[in-house]
């Protein structure tokens, strides 16, 4: 009995430094932000701290500007993931074939992944700037006026294309890893049964890739929802509010307006939204994995 108690004590003793670190860097900031979200507090306010309870949350769910930026973020996530995942899969299938220059293509494809998001945003500023960037020049030869500082639709689509360009290689490489791990027997069996390439993909390859597909979907939705740096560098949320995705709203409220209480409320809300989304997606992944097993 004594030995077991001592063992437990010493176990907790060994764990305590790690628990202290986790508490300090993980739990304390979270509790602080939740606590802050219950107050109306702006650094420049004459009123100081005012306890509002859930007042900030009520305000948030009725805040048209916040809901608009949330809607824009969800739309952005839907469109980018809707393009990235099929495109990444197509590239992965292409790269799983043998052809001359495959290694070079694979290296070039992976290059955007090595770049910092803010560098990507700055690069796209130069690419898209009217009178300087090649995109507006090429499009003008087809009679299309391209100016992301003028057109909301063009600005939105450009942010989508930038994100697709940046992250499709990640999707490709992950699918490629999945494709190479598929055992050859089911594919050979399909071929023996006379299945053509499409049927082999539809009924053999894709079902075997489902766990990878679900994982990629999970990672990309989470990542895209959190986007900030590239968009800030490229459009700063403009023109007007056309690309003011939810994280830009959050940063502007918290840092530019110094509205710490309401900014904390936004953070907590987005955290719970992300957690809810994660839970759904993780359940999906585990369901797919079970089917696969």
């Amino acid at each position, binding site marked *: 009995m004594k030995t077991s108690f001592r063992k437990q004590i010493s176990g907790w003793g060994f764990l305590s430094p790690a628990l202290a670190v986790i508490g300090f860097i993980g739990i304390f900031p979270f509790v602080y932000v939740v606590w802050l979200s219950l107050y109306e507090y702006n*650094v420049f306010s004459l009123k100081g701290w005012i306890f509002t309870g859930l007042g900030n949350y009520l305000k948030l769910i009725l805040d048209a500007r916040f809901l608009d930026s949330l809607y824009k973020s969800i739309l952005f996530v839907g469109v980018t993931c809707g393009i990235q995942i099929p495109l990444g899969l197509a590239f992965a299938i292409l790269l799983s074939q043998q052809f001359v220059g495959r290694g070079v293509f694979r290296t070039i494809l992976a290059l955007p992944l090595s770049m910092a998001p803010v560098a990507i945003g700055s690069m796209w500023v130069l690419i898209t700037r009217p*009178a300087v960037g090649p995109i507006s020049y090429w499009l003008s030869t087809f009679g299309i006026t391209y100016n992301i500082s003028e057109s909301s639709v063009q600005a939105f689509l450009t942010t989508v294309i930038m994100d697709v360009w940046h992250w499709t290689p990640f999707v490709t490489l992950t699918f490629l890893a999945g494709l190479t791990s598929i055992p050859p027997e089911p594919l050979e069996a399909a071929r023996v049964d006379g299945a053509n390439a499409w049927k082999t993909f539809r009924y053999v390859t894709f079902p075997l890739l489902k766990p990878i597909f679900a994982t990629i979907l999970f990672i990309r939705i989470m990542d895209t929802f959190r986007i900030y740096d590239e968009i800030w560098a490229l459009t700063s949320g*403009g*023109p*007007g509010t056309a690309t003011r995705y939810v994280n830009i709203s959050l940063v502007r409220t918290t840092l530019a307006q110094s509205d710490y209480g309401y900014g904390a409320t936004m953070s907590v809300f987005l955290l719970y939204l992300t957690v809810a989304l994660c839970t759904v997606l993780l359940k999906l992944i585990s369901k797919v994995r079970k089917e696969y097993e």
Partner: protein
Amino acid sequence: MEWWEKAAEPYRGVTLKVIGQSTAPSIVLRDIAAPEFEKVTGIKVDFEVQPWEVEYEKFIRDVTGNTGIYDAAYIEQDAIYAFMQQKWLTDLTELMEKNPQITDPDLDVNDFTKFIEYFKDSNGHIFGFPFEAFLKMYIYRTDLFNDPEAKEAFKAEYGKDLKPADTWEEYEQNAKFFTEWGKKKGIELYGHTAQAKTGYPAVAYEIVESIWPAMGIYNWGINLEKWRATVENGGQVNSDKAKAALRWYVDMLKYAPPDVKTYTWDEESSSVAAGKVAQGLVYCENLAPLICNPEKSKVAGKVAVTKPPTTPEALADAKAGKGYIGYYDGASYSIPYCSKNKEAAWLFIQWVTRKGWDLEYTRLASRVVRKSTLESPEIKDMDIAQGGYFTAFKEYESLFSGAAPLPMHLVIIDIYMNWISKAVAGEATPEEALDGLAKEIDEAMVKLGY
């Protein structure tokens, strides 16, 4: 240098952490003045230069957290009221009185231009020593305005002589003329430029600090007695005059380069230096390092500077001391209240604002904060090289004013930016935008306790 060596003796080996903004004068301090200070005093300077929004964010985090990371910080004039109200800055008048042994006997506070007045509290105590100060002036291309062919074409079209604009009507005519002239000649030339990037505060600052004052709307359209913006509550933000001014601003963008809605204050000056525009309002800190620098500019030696166009009413108000025609822009270096090396920081601030360096500093960065510099014979050569800026500065300085004393300025500028961006981007009409802006400012003022 003997005094500096002696005064700095107790602080030799100390490392000062200084944060500045990425303006030309700050970069000159980092690259030239700070290393010289280190050499003379033995006090090391870790000088960090950050973009506008990052600098503020870092400074505010330092003072709200009482961390004492920074010993001296760049404080832009329009933000000082907020920081003084929060008691985030060290009272330098008090510091001087308590520490005569580290106060330069040649400091000569009275030699500073009137700009230093905007860094004082209501008791006349100084909270920052200005090191950069400049006016946002009207700049025009002398080669184009003196081109006989252009002059003839202008006269034929408008029935009067082509000349730099005194009024906004003249400015608009010039803008239209040169934009069409550029098209006709097949050259990339526009009649106007602006800092119209949406979603970035520069666009809001241009309206409240340059366009509105020169059209007779002051203090950002806010009634400073009632702290309200709507017409119903005594403000001017949604007044007919303010709406007409914003509509004019938005309409004028058609005479600017096509990428004008990506321009902040930096790109606005770059568009002039690139030879793309015939006239515009620019922050004159960019004259020496960019627009008038032959190595970086296509228009060096071909520009002249004078006061911005105004309405007759705004000019009369400014002359009578009831208004102003533009923002007297600039910044000081101040000591955060939580600095751990206040005395050494005070030596550094005196070093970068001292008389003996001011003329050379003006040559490098077009900024001027001392009367003795403006009166020195050497300024004449610089004046010629910089399009007559210093002559214009002396002549029109009195018509400009520091920012409206709005202690909540950093909060409300974001609200101005949101609505003005909507108008510039076409998401709302200028009238809708200013109605929305005025209402939201009134709400924000209540929320902030005003």
